[in-house]
């Protein structure tokens, strides 16, 4: 099994390095095909590993030592258990599909080869992240995906907005990474090791304050990667990257790393209900917070990005409530349908010459039938309509919230479910149906390449059927994740399902009805709430005004005023004083005998005083 593990891990790296060799050459189809093939190989290995761990033991290898200093010993160790195998399956599946899709999507791009190099590098980092058997290894992957995300968001670096978004994403993530790093230090100094098994084995007996700090700091790391409030702004801006990147990194895999971390560290989080509750509450808040912003946004990709944010909130709610397997399950289904949604959006963008404003589209269904069908499937799954994948996982989360008596969380999520359904279908309606507004702007949309559609097909299938594997999945992960049975009476259970489905259907219905009639009146756009939502609660502005600009100002002050005018000036002043004292006292050395004699007299005086006051005879 080790061979499969290494294959799954290193195939993307090999692909990446291969593509990187051609990075500054003109487009070469080979790089796309080679990386895709290698990822396919990785996918096969992952599937094999998944089947293996589904039946039996986890695979744990220790490749070599990495850092060894003092009492700290960090190896490159990899573990494939039920959780990481699931993650590997998700990552490789989505990334293989995205790779194949990108061959078509990036067809005309100048930096085709560079794109694949980074995309594969990302997959490798993600694999390291999920497969590592210790926190430091996780951190390698954690930073690695951050790096690749930076490079891919800023892929079209000529655009200022892209490079800005890339920097923003990286720096935001770094803020969170500091928390993570501190968490790792805490783990090391309190548990004496960074290996998962060693740490988790001691979790039960550990002081709860320390556990709280550990989990809190680790969660700060998770907040950054999973773009939770208040570090969420980068995700929407990250949509500057190519759409396949958004599909892979900013929907399916990287942003779920935070959720993965919480799931992975469940023995720690299980011990501290306070932090867990905080995680859940923040998740619920972000769910509705992001959904509300998605309601009014006009940007095709940003709407999907906000929905991602919202769904991540769901996952954190599940993880925070102790329903780790549900979180993982939702992570998986979400990865499928959200990637599908993004790839569909990519098709639309291709058709519309990279236009993103959904109010400039409309009626595209005629031209792009298949894209429309797949996006509708994905949206249904996102809205949580039976029998699509999203229904099963989302419903489980609501059930968990209700069963653990967290009614506020439940209500929040329930409302969010309605909002989700509404904005998903607002998007569908505005893009694919209704008036053909694109004609005004002179676009000539066309359906995407055939094989791009074929590449998307598996995701569509998975979005439909993934939910039915719930029980198999539960059976598999129950080996390592705690599984709580929720004892809801049959009546309550079915009522809950009905209520949830009800609000989702209502949301869809409202969207369909309103937008088939031409949408809401323009007056709404003048209301305060609309503006608030449209401007993302003014949070980016606040960050810009109260953090970025003061920081830049302060830096300038530190440099120009403090460093040059105080610190350096002090040094120069001392030097200047010495120099000037030389200038002054050089008069003494005038060579004038008379003056020198006078100085001799002064010296004599001084010596006399010294002789009187420091006489040894006294």
């Amino acid at each position: 099994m080790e061979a499969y593990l290494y294959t799954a891990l290193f195939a993307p790296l090999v692909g990446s390095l291969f593509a990187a060799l051609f990075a500054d050459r003109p487009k070469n189809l080979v790089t796309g095909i080679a990386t895709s093939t290698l990822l396919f190989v990785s996918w096969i290995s992952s599937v094999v590993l998944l089947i293996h761990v589904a039946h039996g033991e986890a695979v744990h290898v220790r490749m070599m030592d990495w850092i060894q200093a003092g009492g700290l010993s960090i190896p490159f160790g990899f573990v494939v258990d039920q959780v990481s195998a699931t993650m590997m399956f998700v990552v490789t599946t989505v990334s293989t599909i995205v790779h194949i899709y990108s061959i078509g999507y990036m067809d005309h791009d100048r930096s085709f080869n560079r794109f694949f190099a980074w995309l594969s590098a990302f997959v490798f980092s993600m694999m390291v992240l999920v497969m590592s058997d210790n926190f430091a290894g996780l951190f390698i992957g954690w930073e690695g995906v951050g790096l690749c995300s930076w490079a891919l968001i800023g892929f079209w670096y000529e655009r200022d907005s892209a490079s800005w978004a890339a920097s923003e994403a990286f720096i935001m993530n770094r803020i969170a990474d500091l928390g993570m790093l501190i968490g790792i230090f805490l783990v090391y100094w309190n548990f004496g090791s960074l290996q998962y098994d060693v740490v988790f084995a001691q979790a039960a007996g550990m002081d709860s304050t320390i556990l709280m700090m550990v989990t809190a700091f680790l969660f700060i790391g998770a907040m950054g990667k999973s773009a939770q409030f208040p570090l969420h702004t980068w995700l929407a801006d990250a949509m500057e990257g190519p759409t396949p990147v958004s599909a892979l990194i900013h929907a399916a895999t990287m942003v779920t790393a935070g959720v993965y971390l919480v799931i992975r560290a469940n023995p720690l989080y299980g011990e501290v209900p306070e932090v867990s509750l905080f995680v859940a509450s923040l998740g619920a808040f972000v769910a509705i917070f992001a959904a509300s912003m998605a309601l009014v946004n006009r940007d095709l990709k940003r709407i999907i990005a906000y929905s991602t944010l919202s769904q991540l909130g769901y996952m954190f709610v599940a993880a925070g409530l102790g329903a780790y397997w549900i979180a993982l399950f939702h992570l998986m289904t979400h990865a499928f349908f959200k990637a599908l949604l993004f790839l569909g959006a990519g098709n639309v963008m291709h058709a519309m010459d990279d236009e993103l404003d959904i109010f400039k589209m409309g009626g595209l269904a005629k031209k792009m039938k298949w894209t429309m069908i797949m996006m509708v499937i994905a949206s249904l799954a996102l809205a949580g309509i039976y029998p699509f994948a999203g229904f099963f996982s989302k419903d489980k989360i609501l059930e968990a919230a209700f069963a653990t008596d967290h009614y506020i969380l439940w209500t929040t999520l329930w409302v969010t479910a309605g909002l989700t359904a509404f904005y998903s279908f607002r998007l569908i309606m505005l893009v694919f149906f209704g008036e053909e507004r694109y004609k005004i702007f002179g676009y000539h949309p066309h359906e995407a390449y055939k094989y791009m559609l074929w590449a998307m097909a598996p995701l569509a299938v998975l979005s439909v059927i993934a939910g039915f594997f719930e029980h198999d999945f539960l059976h598999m992960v129950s080996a390592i994740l705690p599984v709580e049975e929720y004892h809801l009476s049959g009546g309550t259970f079915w009522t809950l399902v009905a209520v949830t489905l009800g609000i989702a259907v209502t949301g869809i219905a409202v969207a369909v009805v309103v937008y088939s009639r031409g949408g809401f009146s323009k007056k709404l756009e003048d209301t305060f709430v609309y503006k608030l939502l449209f401007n993302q609660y003014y949070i980016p502005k606040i960050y810009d005004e109260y953090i970025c600009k003061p920081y830049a100002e302060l830096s300038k002050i530190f440099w120009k005023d403090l460093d040059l005018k105080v610190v350096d000036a002090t040094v120069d002043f001392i030097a200047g004083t010495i120099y000037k004292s030389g200038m002054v006292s050089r008069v003494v050395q005038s060579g004038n005998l008379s003056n020198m004699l006078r100085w001799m007299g002064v010296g004599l005086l001084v010596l006399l005083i010294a002789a009187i006051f420091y006489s040894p005879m006294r």
Partner: protein
Amino acid sequence: MITLSHYLIVSAILFCIGLVGVYRRKNLLLLLFSTEILLNAVNIGFAAVSKFYGDLTGQLFAFFIIAVAASEVAVGLGLFIVWYKRRGTLDVDSMQSMHG
């Protein structure tokens, strides 16, 4: 009764007179006079200490000082002559060639 202190005070006063000369004289030759005063003042001190402590070292010091003074005058006057031949003056301020 004349004590050591009397001699020493006289010596100090003479020394200070010498100092005044050293400070205010600009003519090299007269400057040299002043240094002679300084030396003589010190000599008195030495001789006095020698007497009141019954130790000949003081007198011997004074003796050597006289020797030094004599040779100083010999060399110094020689130098002055050379200088005077070149410059025609013995003013101290005219000897300054450094900037200061």
